[in-house]
């Protein structure tokens, strides 16, 4: 446990004692607030609600989460520190988990910085605090799932640009899976049950469900399983990369 925590702490230190986390948080806040005020028409809808924030958040995450996660393993391989890390008596899955937790901490810090928006809404009206809390919970889980995807992809290449593009594409598919526009062509070829299956894989669908104030165990389970799947895949990929030499 001590060794595991030391890896988490080092990762966090590497993010927070360099401009990385700061730059990520600032851009995240700029983008998410711009999206909410300019695209989400926060004031025009006449409701003290953060619905528009949570509706647009996945698109901000689509741009920024791959940027945050892309260097995780790529940089270890590029700089050679993977060999140092591998020589530590720590199981591979713990290294994956440690990296994931530290990434999630950075993402959660950015998410937490949106609290002035919540404060403003509370000052202007009477928002449903329970719904907002659930919205944050859903957003935190969605970010975790996105980070798990990004972390896994970063183990595939030392080239961070490739990692960013591939991660973005996969996350885009996970987002679009819930959009009727994307689902219509699928519906024409496959059966409704398959379309439902594709739709159920969408990060958007599950986030919208939670942020509307309904905590369905299936949504939580979806994110939990997605995270576990991608983290496990990450551990397997690291091992296979090592076996291939």
């Amino acid at each position: 446990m001590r060794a595991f925590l030391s890896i988490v702490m080092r990762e966090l230190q590497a993010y927070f004692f360099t401009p990385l986390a700061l730059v990520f948080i600032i851009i995240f806040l700029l983008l998410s607030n711009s999206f909410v005020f300019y695209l989400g028409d926060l004031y025009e809808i006449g409701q003290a609600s953060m619905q528009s924030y949570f509706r647009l958040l996945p698109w901000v995450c689509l741009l920024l989460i791959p940027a945050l996660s892309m260097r995780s393993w790529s940089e270890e391989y590029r700089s050679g520190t993977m060999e140092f890390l591998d020589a530590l008596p720590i199981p591979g899955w713990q290294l994956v988990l440690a990296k994931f937790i530290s990434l999630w901490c950075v993402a959660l810090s950015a998410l937490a910085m949106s609290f002035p928006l919540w404060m403003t809404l509370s000052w202007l009206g009477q928002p449903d605090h329970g719904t907002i809390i659930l919205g944050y919970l859903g957003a935190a889980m969605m970010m975790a799932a996105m980070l798990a995807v990004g972390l896994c992809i970063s183990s595939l290449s030392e080239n961070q640009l490739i990692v960013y593009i591939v991660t973005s594409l996969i996350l885009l598919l996970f987002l679009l899976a819930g959009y009727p526009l994307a689902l219509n062509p699928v519906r024409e070829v496959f059966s409704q049950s398959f379309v439902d299956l594709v739709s159920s894989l969408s990060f958007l669908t599950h986030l919208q469900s939670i942020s509307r104030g309904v905590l369905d165990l299936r949504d939580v389970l979806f994110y939990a399983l997605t995270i576990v799947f991608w983290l496990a895949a990450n551990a397997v990929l690291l091992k296979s990369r090592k076996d291939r030499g």
Partner: protein
Amino acid sequence: MIRAQALNKKFAAIEAVRDLSFQVEKGEVVALLGPNGAGKTSCMRMLSGFLKPDSGVALIAGHDSTRNPLAAKRQLGYLAEHAPIYREHTVFYYLHFVAKARGLSKGRAETAVDDVFRSLNLDSIAFQPINTLSKGSMRRVALAAAVLHRPPVLLLDEPSDGLDPIQKQLVRSLILDLAKNSAILMSTHQIDEVLALCPRTIIMAKGRKLLDQATDDLLRQSKYHNAVSFVAKESIAARAALEGLSGVTGFEQNAVDGRLYVFVHGHKPQNQLIVEKLSQKNVPFSDIRLEYGRLEEVFSKAVAEAV
């Protein structure tokens, strides 16, 4: 403590390591000497568990690096090629992190870090960010990270690459100190390093082990072994004085410093005889010495034959 059993590794069509076997016991410092591309780093990586061998077994303190990697890694200190290191931290933070990541308790971690600070003279750079350090200082920090838990097995890939003479001396002292309780395998292509630290040398080329002998025995294979060398202003007179002397088989003069080498037959040192002869013939000379042999010559010959 370190055991390589018929290790093989291929990268596509290239055989990086071929049927490599050796072992290193506690208290031994063994050099893995070879030209670039000889397979030294691949061998180190297989022993450390970073690379899976295609066949064969790598054992660290009795633990298989592939099948039981965690147990092997607990017994291992590994300085990888190019001394990879997290450059965004201070030296102090980094070494404490490594101590914790190695599972050392707080008290043991502090003692271990204090020890390596002292033995590698890191005090003056303790709170300096690693990315501002010189190459030599970075390597010392990486070495400190590899040895701070005092492992019974040490794999050091080019430990003194890029160090200045003073830093080299520090590192050598540390390695000799660690060797009392550890088995050390050191990959290098620096001959002076081998002569200073390693009583045994394994010479590799093209992925194969060419020689595995006591370094002194390798030196005995050199044509310079037991040759007598000296500086003579009148080298022609010196040659004339020594020609025909029993046991003298030839001469060689160094074009750079003018030093004259006198080769003698057999393994019996002839320096006393040569001193007497030169004095008898009134040939002035200075700085006379008996040569131990040249490892680079033995090394080059072995590699040339293999290639």
